[in-house]
């Protein structure tokens, strides 16, 4: 008969944490930060089809690192919850805080109840009327939530990335400057011998929550608009407007609350 060994709860939790941390650190990182015109998401992502950054609701976005199937699962749940609440009450009643709470409960329950925790780290971001009113929530694999002050880094080697962000990021930056800072921070680790490296535009997934819009504010910045941002931070807004995803191009003013 197999012998059952005793493992203390502390040991079990430690093992699970270690598993989750290792899984998260293996992947590529992502940063989220406030800038003058909204909230910027930049993730290092080799795939252009499997997104790490996504839209949840009018003013709420989602970014994640770790295992794709696990955070995609949470993102879908978030979209369903947001749409259900928005339909039952009003679009204004869907908040980032409520979503962060639901994700935290879910991650916490999975961490304690299941034998394997989710190997994910998540950011729920809500764009406000000013950069000071932006809300960034960091959710970790064990269900803990942190309210971050206008910028955050997730994934592996986040201390180094966060240090670069901290020294270079200001909430009143333009989009071009913010993208450059984000890419510089992501590239500050992982080079030969711990040196900085350059990240090509096609390895980046960039999206924004546009502060100035009414209705759905989430837009992806892809193709020529992204290249232009990376090449010259100042020639930004106009070209970014022009070639972001067509799907998001409705004039938001024409979408009255529903």
């Amino acid at each position, binding site marked *: 008969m197999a012998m059952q060994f005793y493992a203390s709860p502390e040991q079990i939790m430690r093992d699970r944490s270690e598993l989750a941390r290792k899984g998260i650190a293996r992947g590529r990182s992502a940063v989220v930060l406030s800038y003058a015109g909204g909230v910027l998401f930049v993730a290092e992502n080799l795939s252009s089809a499997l*997104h790490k950054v*996504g*839209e*949840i609701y009018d003013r709420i976005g989602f970014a994640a690192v770790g295992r794709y199937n696990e955070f995609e*699962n*949470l993102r*879908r*749940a978030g*979209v*369903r*919850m947001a*749409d*259900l*609440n*928005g*339909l*039952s009450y009003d679009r204004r009643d869907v908040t980032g805080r409520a979503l962060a709470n*639901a994700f935290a*409960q*879910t991650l*916490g*329950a*999975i961490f304690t*109840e299941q034998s394997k925790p989710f190997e994910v780290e998540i950011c729920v971001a809500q764009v406000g009327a000013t950069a000071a009113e932006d809300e960034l929530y960091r959710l970790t694999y064990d269900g803990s939530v942190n309210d971050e002050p206008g910028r955050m880094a997730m994934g592996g080697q986040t201390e180094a990335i966060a240090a670069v962000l901290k020294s270079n990021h200001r909430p009143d930056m333009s989009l071009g400057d913010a993208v450059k800072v984000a890419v510089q921070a992501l590239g500050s680790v992982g080079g030969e011998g711990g040196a900085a490296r350059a990240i090509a535009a096609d390895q980046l997934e960039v999206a924004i929550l546009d502060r100035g819009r009414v209705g*759905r504010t989430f837009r992806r910045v892809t193709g020529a608009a992204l290249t232009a941002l990376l090449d010259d931070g100042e020639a930004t807004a106009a070209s970014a407007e022009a070639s972001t995803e*067509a*799907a*998001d*191009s*409705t*004039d938001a003013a*024409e*979408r*009255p609350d*529903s």
Partner: protein
Amino acid sequence: MAAAFDPSGRLPDLFTNAGTSSFSAFLSQAAPELLPGRRPLPPGMATDLTPHATTIIAIAAAGGVVLAGDRRATMGNLIAQRDIEKVYPADAYSLVGMAGAAGIGIELIRLFRVELEHYEKIEGAMLSLDGKANRLAAMVRGNLGAAMQGLAVVPLFAGFDLAATDPAKAGRIFSFDVTGGPYEEVGYDAVGSGSLFAKSALKKRFRYGLSVDDAVRLAVEALYDAADDDTATGGPDLTRRIYPVVMSATAEGTHRLTEAETAAIAESVVAGRMENPGG
């Protein structure tokens, strides 16, 4: 709300499983009471319970489509509301309007808009225009029981088809009946009590390849004709400054004409009818 959390505090499996990309399919499990067609109605006719929304017109133009609606809702011989809005953008490239039981119609449109947005967010891509029309048909069919008790809603759906090979034919119109549909219409269509007169007017004046601006003018003219002969359709109300809602969907997306724009068109239409009441 029914779809609350289970005791462990985590989101129920219903939320997290891969499941469906359709919001109404999700709702049918999470909160079926929010689906218009899922409510058991007591027996008997319910026709007089809700105001009835009236005429909606769609016209296909070169490079787009125009959807316009009057502003009146009636209950029997009374005007229930003078400034109701019955035309909405369904998503970035399509428009939807409705005639029939106003309360259910507004709810149906609201749900349809969430349905399209939900699919787009979950899948990361928009539904095709035909896919949107089919979803709407299924939602209308879901209301069949209520329709048989007098609470019928009939939408009119029009949009710019991003997949169209010929941009001149990208503006497409779909009509429905209470049992579903969709039926694709060529050129123009109308629903609601004044639709007979609006369609008669359009039959004589519609031309293929109209510009969007001409189609807008034609839509306001046709609404005038509908209001002229149908008491349940409201004409432009110059004294209260209530004008039809006119929207277009083109390659640039959906656009609602401003109050000032519709006012100018409506005033010019009314001025024309001062000289020739038949238009």
